[in-house]
């Protein structure tokens, strides 16, 4: 176990390194334009551009720029090109919002996916199954930003059932916190419920007629116990890992569409805005934060998987 964790730590460092280089390249090497000119605004003089170039170090070779930026990230000294705000502080402010969105949505989608997946599997082939499968497919087919915007408009703005975007910190008022997050949670979950319920349905269908389920019935166990204690439990094991991965991805900025539509000012929204402005420092920082989180989540998920399924040996 110890070796496994150490190996993961090493690979995490490698991943962070690779990602930071790749991100840096995307913004500084690929675009065929001059960052100093972009920062300078409209009609700059040559002198202004030169000054900016020197100030931000754009006159130095690429690898020096990269090294400098990495240094700044780790010393917490990183400042945005555009708004002069300390990037790390901004991320710290935004992270709880993203976490709130991620955790609530993750629980919501898991609960509904299990219920839906199990129900459609048990009633497979019947009308309920086909109807709910179509619903799940519709859920997968809707872009989250579209359904989110419509929810916001109808439920928030027009009919005033839910607040129109915005965020209330958990520590301030838990009820309002949840109240404001219900719509984003739902919008984000719809997609995952669609995916996960179908995966679970497929897994359950595979296991429900497996030999050991038959043995369980031959033991005289009631069908409900067979379903819950044997079939469902075994079907959920591979899903737990997927769930962890999705959760990690969402925290790492993957929910930026939902955050933008509902104006939650989370990490995802922050990085989306930064990218649009070609503001490299926040992007770099968020991407690394996200990658770090994903690796940690992956590792935790792998460990959980090994505890649930004793046949798996951690390598």
């Amino acid at each position: 176990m110890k070796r496994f964790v150490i190996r993961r730590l090493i690979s995490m460092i490698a991943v962070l390194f690779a990602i930071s280089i790749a991100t840096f390249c995307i913004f500084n090497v690929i675009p065929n334009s001059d960052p100093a000119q972009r920062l300078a605004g409209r009609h700059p003089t040559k002198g202004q551009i030169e000054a900016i170039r020197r100030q931000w170090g754009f006159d130095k070779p690429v690898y020096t720029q990269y090294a400098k930026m990495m240094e700044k990230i780790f010393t917490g000294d990183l400042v945005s090109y555009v708004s002069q705000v300390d990037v790390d502080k901004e991320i710290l402010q935004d992270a709880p919002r993203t976490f709130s969105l991620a955790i609530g949505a993750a629980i919501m989608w898991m609960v509904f996916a299990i219920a839906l997946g199990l129900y459609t599997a048990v009633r497979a082939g019947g009308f309920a199954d086909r109807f709910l499968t179509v619903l799940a497919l519709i859920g997968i087919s809707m872009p989250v930003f579209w359904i989110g915007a419509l929810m916001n408009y109808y439920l928030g703005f027009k009919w005033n059932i839910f607040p129109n975007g915005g965020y209330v910190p958990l520590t301030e008022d838990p009820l309002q916190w949840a109240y404001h997050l219900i719509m984003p949670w739902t919008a984000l979950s719809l997609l995952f419920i669609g995916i996960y319920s179908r995966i679970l349905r497929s897994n359950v269908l595979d296991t429900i007629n497996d030999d050991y389920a038959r043995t369980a019935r031959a033991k005289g166990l009631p069908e409900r116990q067979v379903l819950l204690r044997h079939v469902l439990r075994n079907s959920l094991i591979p899903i737990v890992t997927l769930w962890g991965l999705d959760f990690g991805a969402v925290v790492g900025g993957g929910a930026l569409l939902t955050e933008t539509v509902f104006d939650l000012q989370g990490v995802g929204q922050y990085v989306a805005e930064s990218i649009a402005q070609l503001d490299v420092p926040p992007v770099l920082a968020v991407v690394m934060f996200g990658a770090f989180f994903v690796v940690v989540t992956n590792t935790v998920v792998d460990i959980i998987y090994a505890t649930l399924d004793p046949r798996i040996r951690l390598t």
Partner: protein
Amino acid sequence: MAIEPATELASAVPEAIVAEGGRTRVAGLAPWRIALRRLRRNRVALAFGALFLVIVGMCLAAPIYADQIAHTDPYTNHLTEQITVHGVKKYVVAPSGVPIGPTYSGRFFLGADGNGRDIAVRLLYGGRASLTIGIGAALFTTLLSIIAGMLAGYYRGWVDAVIGRLLDLVWAYPVVLLGIALGTALALGGLKIGPLQIDGESKLIPTLVIAVIYVPYMARPLRGQVLALREKEFVEAARAQGAGSLRIMFSEILPNLSSSIVVFLPLLIANAILLEAALSFLGAGVRPPNPSWGTMIGDGVERIISGPHLAIVPGIMLVLNVLALNVFGDGVRDAFDPRARVRASH
């Protein structure tokens, strides 16, 4: 898979569950015929497949519609114009800024947007953009994935390691994030690799970006299959007959990948279309004033308070399209691997 999707676990999760791709058949053509027959019996899947083709057809006919029926093009602003609807003269865009609603007649069938452009025309042209990018990206992903998966799985060793690391790198980013990063960066100055030059405004940029992003999702399962296939007896037999590596890869292994690819493709196209919409919505895909369903939704959401139908209409088109692909793709997958279904009574 979706816009904010899972990343696959690199270790022990069985690929049959995660990958959603079909299973490998080693025999030759017969599985195709069986699958085709099964698919033909699945009327729901076929109906949705037809729906997809109808939408594609409509969008291909966009120029005809624009020319003959709507008498305008997707870019022209008719801001200050007035048209006659059912005998009543109305402003295309009222002085208050509210554009005209659906007229259900030739001009402005679905109404106008904030800039006085014909929504129906933009919808069809936008469909052309979204569909070309989506389908193009999917095809390109398939091509790259076959190459990557084949090379990695067949040669293994350091080739596999290098390709594997590249795939991991792409995979480590959340999909939309990578999309807008690449999309924005490339849109600035275009792509210049040696002799290859692509203009930043070109639709090829989002196509390539989306294609590259999805490669790991397809290349991984394919690589796994290639790894298994190369150990099969028929490969050994081909080698004993003197076939070279390239020959083996193309005439022995590739045909066996075909069922996986066919199962994967509709879902891939669906996801590519969704990703394009997301990127365009954020401004990192199709650039204005070019229409795409994503940009139209973006425009509509911006002005949603003045009238939600601007956002609803392109969204519905998008959903119908993607749903059609998903249902059809489901049917294709069932046709190739019906194990997952339980038949009720006959």
